C-alpha cells in the first residue's frame, strides 16, 4: 500500500500564556487526504494548536511544517494552499453572500473567470445558491455558518482547517455542513477538524487526536480509540419497577461490570463478551421482568475520554 505523505508535521509544540500551558509538547502528523479530528473539551488547546500551525500565534517551542515547508507568517506560497474556517463567523456585513465569497476567494485567485466559477462551486457546496444576493444580517445562524465555510474553502485549498464550524447550528445546516466537508475530502483535500462534538468526529474523521489541557491523551482511528475503552457494550432498558432483588440479579449476569438504575431506566455495562443483548432479553423473559424499550450501544469517544480523564467531553 502506498505511504501517504505528511501534509502537516507538528513536533514538540509548546505554547504558554504566562504560567498557563495552553499547548504542552504536542507532536502529530496529518496525512494527505485524511480528515483528522482534534477532539477535546473547551479550553483543551484545540484552537491554540490550530492558530500556532497557521502562524497566527507565536509559540514557545517546537517545529511546524506544512507541505514540507516550515510554517511562518510570511510563508505565502504555503498559505496559498490553505483554507481556514474559523470558529467565529468572519464575513463583511457590508458585502452580499456572493461579494463575501468573491472577496475571500479573490485573496487567492486573481483570474476573474476562474474565481467566478469557484464562487459558484462554493455556493453550491454549502447550499447558498438562492441566497447569494442577501447580506449576512439577513441570514439565519445556520446559513451564516455555511457562508463562513464557503468563504474559507472557495479557493479550493489542498489543506483545510475547520474550527468548530457547527457550533450553534440547526440540525439541517449541520447535516449540510458535514456533507460538504465529506465532499471536500472526496475532492482530495486534507482536513483538520476541531470540535467538541464526538458524534461529528465519529461520522467524519479518519483519525482522531483527543486533547486535554494541551496534551494528547489518545490518538488513532475511531475503532482504535474505542478499543482503549474497558467497556464492550452498554445495554439500556426502560423498565418500570425493579425490586432490590431483581436489581442485584442483573449484577450477577456474566460479563456485567456495572449496573445503574434511575428513573425507570436501567443501564447495564458489559466489559467484554458477545451476544450480550440477546442474553439480556433472555434474562428478562426468564425472570418475567416487563420492559418497554431495550437497546445496546458500543462505547463512544466520550466513554474513552471519560475513562482517560475522569470527566465528560462537554464538561
Amino acid at each position, binding site marked *: 500500500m502506498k505511504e501517504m505523505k505528511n501534509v502537516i508535521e507538528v513536533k514538540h509544540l509548546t*505554547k504558554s500564556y504566562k504560567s498557563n500551558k495552553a499547548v504542552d509538547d504536542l507532536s502529530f502528523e496529518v496525512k494527505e487526504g485524511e480528515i483528522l479530528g482534534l477532539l477535546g473539551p473547551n479550553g483543551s488547546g484545540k484552537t491554540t494548536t490550530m492558530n500556532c500551525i*497557521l*502562524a*497566527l*500565534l*507565536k*509559540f514557545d517551542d517546537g517545529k511546524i511544517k506544512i507541505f514540507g515547508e516550515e510554517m511562518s*507568517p*510570511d510563508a*505565502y*506560497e504555503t*498559505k*496559498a494552499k*490553505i483554507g*481556514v474556517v*474559523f470558529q*467565529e*463567523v*468572519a*464575513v*463583511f*456585513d*457590508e*458585502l452580499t453572500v456572493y*461579494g463575501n465569497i*468573491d*472577496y*475571500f476567494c*479573490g*485573496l*487567492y485567485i*486573481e483570474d476573474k473567470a476562474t474565481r467566478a466559477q469557484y464562487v459558484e462551486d462554493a455556493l453550491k457546496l454549502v447550499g447558498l445558491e438562492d441566497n447569494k444576493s442577501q447580506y449576512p444580517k439577513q441570514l439565519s445562524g445556520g446559513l451564516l455558518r455555511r457562508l463562513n465555510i464557503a*468563504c*474559507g474553502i472557495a479557493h479550493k485549498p489542498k489543506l483545510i482547517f475547520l474550527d468548530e464550524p457547527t457550533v450553534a447550528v440547526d440540525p439541517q445546516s449541520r447535516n449540510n455542513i458535514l456533507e460538504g466537508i465529506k465532499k471536500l475530502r472526496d475532492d482530495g483535500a486534507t482536513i483538520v477538524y476541531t470540535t467538541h462534538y464526538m458524534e461529528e468526529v465519529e461520522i467524519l474523521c479518519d483519525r482522531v487526536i483527543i486533547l486535554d489541557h494541551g496534551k494528547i491523551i489518545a490518538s488513532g482511528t475511531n475503532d482504535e480509540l474505542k478499543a482503549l475503552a474497558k467497556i464492550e457494550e452498554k445495554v439500556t432498558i426502560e423498565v418500570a419497577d425493579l425490586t432490590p432483588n431483581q436489581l442485584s440479579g442483573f449484577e450477577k449476569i456474566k460479563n456485567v461490570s456495572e449496573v445503574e438504575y434511575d428513573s425507570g431506566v436501567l443501564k447495564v455495562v458489559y466489559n467484554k463478551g458477545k451476544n450480550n443483548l440477546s442474553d439480556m432479553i433472555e434474562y428478562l423473559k426468564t425472570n418475567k421482568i416487563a420492559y418497554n424499550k431495550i437497546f445496546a450501544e458500543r462505547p463512544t469517544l466520550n466513554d474513552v475520554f471519560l475513562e482517560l480523564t475522569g470527566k465528560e467531553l462537554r464538561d
Partner: protein
Amino acid sequence: MTVSKAFWKIALKNIGTIITYTVILIMFGTMNISSGSTTTSYEAKKPSIVIFNHDEKVGVTKNFIEYLEKNAKIKDGYEDDDRLKDALFYDDVMLVIEIPENFHQDIALGKNPEIKTRSSAGYAAELAKVVVNRYLTVAQAYAAINLSEEDLASKIDGALETSTKVDVNSEVDTSKYSKPTRYFSFANYTILACVITIICLIMSSFNRLEIRKRNLVSRIELKKMNLILLRNCCIYALAAWVFYVLLGFIVLGFDTIWNLHGLLYAANALVFTACATTIAYLISRIVFNSGAINGIMNVVALGSSFLCGAFVPAEYLPESVLAIAHIMPSYYYIDANNKIMEMQNTSFETVWPILLNMIIVFCFCVLFVIVANIISKKKQKIA
C-alpha cells in the same frame, strides 16, 4: 484589486453618511458665509432734532440753525409737550434744544448762553449733543477774538467745514476674502467628520479580528494589503477634497477664489485633508468598534472646530482655549486661512507664515502616522 473592490463597496454602503455630511457642509457652510458679512461702507446717520428758537433768526443764531439743518434732521410740529415726550420716548426725536433770547448777541460778546436740552435715551441723542456742542465750542473760541457777528459766523463755518481726509493704504480689499475664509475654516469640521467617519468605518470592517485573521492566513502580504487600504483611503480623502474645493467655487463664485488666494486656500485644505486622513488612520488602529467611531469623530471634529475657531472666530475665544488649540492641527489650518485672508501682496514675507502653518500641519501628519504604526506593531503582537 479584490481588496480595493471591497473597500469601495463598503464605502458605497456608507454613502448615506457621506451625503449627510455633504449636506451639512452645504447648509451650514452657506449659512455661515452669508450670515456674517462684513460691513465695508458707512453712511452717516443724522440725528433728529427739534428746535425751539426764542431768539431772532439773525447772525450767529441764523448760522447755528443752518448748521443744525445741515448736520441733523430738523423736525417740526412738536409744540404739544405730551407729543414731544412720546417722540423722545420712542426715539423719533433724539434731542430738543431751546435757543434762548439774545443768543446771537451773547455769543458775540463771548458769554456762555445756556441752551436747554432734553434728549432721548439712545446713543443717537449723544451724537446729537456732540453736534450741538461742536458748534458751541467753536463759536465760543472765535468769540474770544472780538469779531463782528458776520465775521464770527463766517469763521465758525470755515472751522466746521474742515475735515480730515483718511487714505486707506491697502492694496487688497481683505473683506473680499472673509467669505472664502469662513467657508474653508468651516470645512475643518466637514473634512474631519467625513474623512474620519468613512475611513474609520471601512477600516473597522477590515480590522475586525475575525476578518484580520482570515486576511493574515491568506496569500496576500500584510504589508501589501495595508498599502492597498492606505492608497484607497488617500483616494477617498482626495476625492473629498476635490469635492469641497469645487463646491467652494460654486458657493463662493468662480471669480472670488480663482486667484492666488484661492490656490492657497485649496492647498491649505489639501494639507489638512491629508492630516485628517492620518487622524482617521490612527483612530482606526485604536478603535475597531463601529459604534464608538461616531462618538470619537464627534469629539475630534466638533471639539477641534469649537476650540480652534472654525465656528466662532478665534479672536472671540479666551486665551486659555487658544492655548489648548495650539496642540491641534485645526488651529494651524484655520490660522493659515486667516493669514491668507489678510495677505496684502505676494511676497516671501506674506506667504511664508501661511506655508509655515501648512508645514506644521504636515508635521502633525507624520506624527500621527508614526504613532499609528507604533500602536499597530504593538497590536500585531497578539501572542
